[in-house]
C-alpha cells in the first residue's frame, strides 16, 4: 500500500536537490563565520594559514575531484546499460573517499603533534585570531569528513545494489542521487581548500 503506483524519477531528483540545498546552508553557516572572522583577524588568519600543510590539501583536492569524475561516469555507465562498469567506477570512488579520510587522519595527527588543536596550550598562547582560524578549520573539515564518510557508505551500498541488479538502466534514481550527494561533498571541499590552505 505504501508503494507508489509508479516511480517518479523527477520527483526523487527534486527532493534530493532540495536536501542538497540544506547541506549547502549547513556549510554556508561556517563560511559566514569564516568571512566575519577573516575581516576581523586578517593578519592572524594569514599567519595561521601559512602553517597549514598545503601538500595534504592539494592531494585531497585531486582525489576528490577524481572520485567525483568516477561517480559521474558511473551514472553515464548505468544509463548506457554498463552495470559492471558502473560498479567498478563506484568502487573507485569509494576507495578515493577512503584515501581522502586516511590523508585527513595523517594530516590531523601531524597537526596534533605540533600542538595545534582547539584548546591546546600552543593556541592559547598564540594571538586570538589564530585559535579562531583553527577552530573554524577543525569544525568545517570535521563536518566535511563526516560527509565524506556518509557519502562513501552511500556509494558502497549503491554499488552493491547495482551489482545485484536492483539498480539498472530503467531505475537508477538511487545511484543518481548518491552521485549528486558525492558531488556536493566535492563542491564543499572546492571552497574549503582555498579558504584554509591557500590564504597565505
Amino acid at each position, binding site marked *: 500500500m505504501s508503494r507508489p503506483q509508479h516511480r517518479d524519477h523527477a520527483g526523487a531528483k527534486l527532493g534530493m*536537490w532540495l536536501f542538497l540545498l540544506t547541506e549547502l546552508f549547513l556549510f*554556508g553557516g561556517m563560511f559566514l563565520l569564516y568571512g566575519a572572522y*577573516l*575581516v576581523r583577524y586578517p593578519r592572524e588568519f594569514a599567519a595561521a594559514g601559512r602553517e597549514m600543510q598545503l601538500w595534504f590539501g592539494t592531494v585531497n583536492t585531486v582525489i576528490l575531484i577524481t572520485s567525483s569524475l568516477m561517480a*559521474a561516469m558511473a551514472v553515464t555507465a548505468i544509463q548506457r546499460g554498463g552495470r559492471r562498469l558502473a560498479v567498478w567506477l563506484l568502487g573507485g570512488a569509494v576507495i578515493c573517499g577512503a584515501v581522502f579520510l586516511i590523508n585527513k587522519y595523517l594530516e590531523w595527527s601531524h597537526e596534533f603533534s605540533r600542538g595545534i588543536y582547539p584548546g591546546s596550550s600552543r593556541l592559547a598562547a598564540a594571538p586570538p585570531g589564530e585559535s579562531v582560524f583553527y577552530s573554524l578549520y577543525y569544525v568545517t573539515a570535521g563536518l566535511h569528513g563526516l560527509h565524506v564518510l556518509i557519502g562513501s557508505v552511500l556509494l558502497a551500498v549503491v554499488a552493491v545494489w547495482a551489482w545485484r541488479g536492483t539498480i539498472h538502466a530503467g531505475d537508477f534514481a538511487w545511484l543518481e542521487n548518491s552521485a549528486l550527494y558525492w558531488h556536493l561533498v566535492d563542491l564543499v571541499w572546492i571552497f574549503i581548500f582555498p579558504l584554509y590552505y591557500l590564504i597565505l
Partner: protein
Amino acid sequence: MGKDTHGNTTHIIGYGTLTAVWGVLLLLTALTVWAARHATGFGHVWGSLAIASVKGGLVIAFFMHMRYEGRLLRWLLFVALVTLALFIGLTFFDVLYR
C-alpha cells in the same frame, strides 16, 4: 504527471565530456595553488574564491547535470544561492561597520 520539469528526458553525458571537465578542474586546481604561492596581498582571497567558483560551477553544470535540467531545478539553486548570499551580506552590515 510531468508538471514543472518539462518531461523526463534524461540526458546522457558522454565519458569524453566528463573527462574534459575533470582535466579543466585539475588545471584550475594547479592554477589556484600556483597563484596563491606567487600573488601577494589580500586580493588573492578574491582571486582564489573566483577560481573556486568556476570549479564549483563546472561541477554543478556537468557532474551534477544542471546544464541539462529544466527550469525548476535551476530556479531552486538560484534562489538558494541568493538567499545564502543575503544571509552573509546582511551580516556584514554588522561586521564591517562595528
